[in-house]
């Protein structure tokens, strides 16, 4: 690999690695116990529960 590509590869993963960790943590932390669907009327959701 050329020097420029090695540098780009390193730079990308310095950013991508923490970004992936943050996305996964945020997604798991905000995960709802019961899936919500805002387009459904409240009555339908309550009935489903």
């Amino acid at each position, binding site marked *: 690999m*050329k020097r420029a*590509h090695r540098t780009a590869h390193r730079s990308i*993963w310095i950013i*991508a690695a923490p970004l992936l960790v943050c996305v*996964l943590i945020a*997604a798991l932390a905000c995960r709802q116990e019961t*899936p919500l669907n805002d387009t459904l009327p409240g009555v339908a959701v309550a009935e489903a529960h």
Partner: protein
Amino acid sequence: MAHGYKAVTWTPFKKRFDAWMLAGVAVYLTGFSAASSLATTDGESFTPVQMLIRATGTLAFLMLTFILCIGPMARLTPRFKPLLYNRRHLGVTTFLIALVHAGLVTLWYHGFSDINPIVSLLVSNPRYDSISGFPFESLGLIALLILFLMAATSHDFWNANLGPGLWKAVHMSVYGAYVLLVAHVALGAIQFEKHPAYVVLLASGAAIVTALQLYSAFFASGPDAKTRPTDGWLEVGSAADIPDSRAIILEPEGAERIAVFRNGNKVHAVSNVCRHQGGPLGEGRIIDGCITCPWHGFQYRPEDGRSPEPFTERISTYETQIRDGIIYVNPRPLAPGTPVTPSLIEEAVR
């Protein structure tokens, strides 16, 4: 290897590779559907289309995860090198599977909309300020567009016409596509799929890719020696330290790497960068008298850096000398294809 357009040649190995790959895809899709049917609890019901949406989605994620592991794994073990040769076949297949997934999702969930299904996909959920309700479809769509760009330019015709540098830069966008794909799954399927297998699959896949890519970026791709020139020449080391048909890679300060090969009692120095896709020639070996790139098998004669006839690729060569059993390289590259007389290793050193 020539720069003109050439139809893809299907060697027996490529045919076997593709047959195994397609068989694997068929087995996965069938197995996923069967396993999902068995795991479905009372009260849940999925149509065959929904099952296929899940099967193609998980398969595309697994395939892209696997593809991104191939490069670093090929550095760890030569067993992965055959996969490196045909990685593009896997990439194009991944794009096609992701396209089926996107097409089914768009038609199944937005096909009955009053507006264009793709417009509906993009505008029906404007909750960009939410994590659990984020319109994750847009992330998947951008990732799909990147995969399309890569699949469409995967042929060597584009590599030759864009130039290896630009082609490589375009194809490095796969890392961005992977981050988008992980976010697409994390903010999408993970938010409403309660089976723990989805979380395990996503987290372990992302962790393995990240670990391998960081290892490759910071540890596995380092040169054998970083050197500064003394009296205008770089010290490589003892001739006895280079195994026959192999190379030591040097990194002159502020310049491209140099691969110093030993071929019997001869020492040759050439650019470490393959003309095809920038592969590390110094990690390859001399086969049939030619330096052979470990990535796709492009070959160069060690004495002049030229590909054997009828191919036309050329790489830079460097002057070498041996003093008291120590190899030295002149760090000034000669014009690509310039013949250089090799230095000879004395019998006592060998």
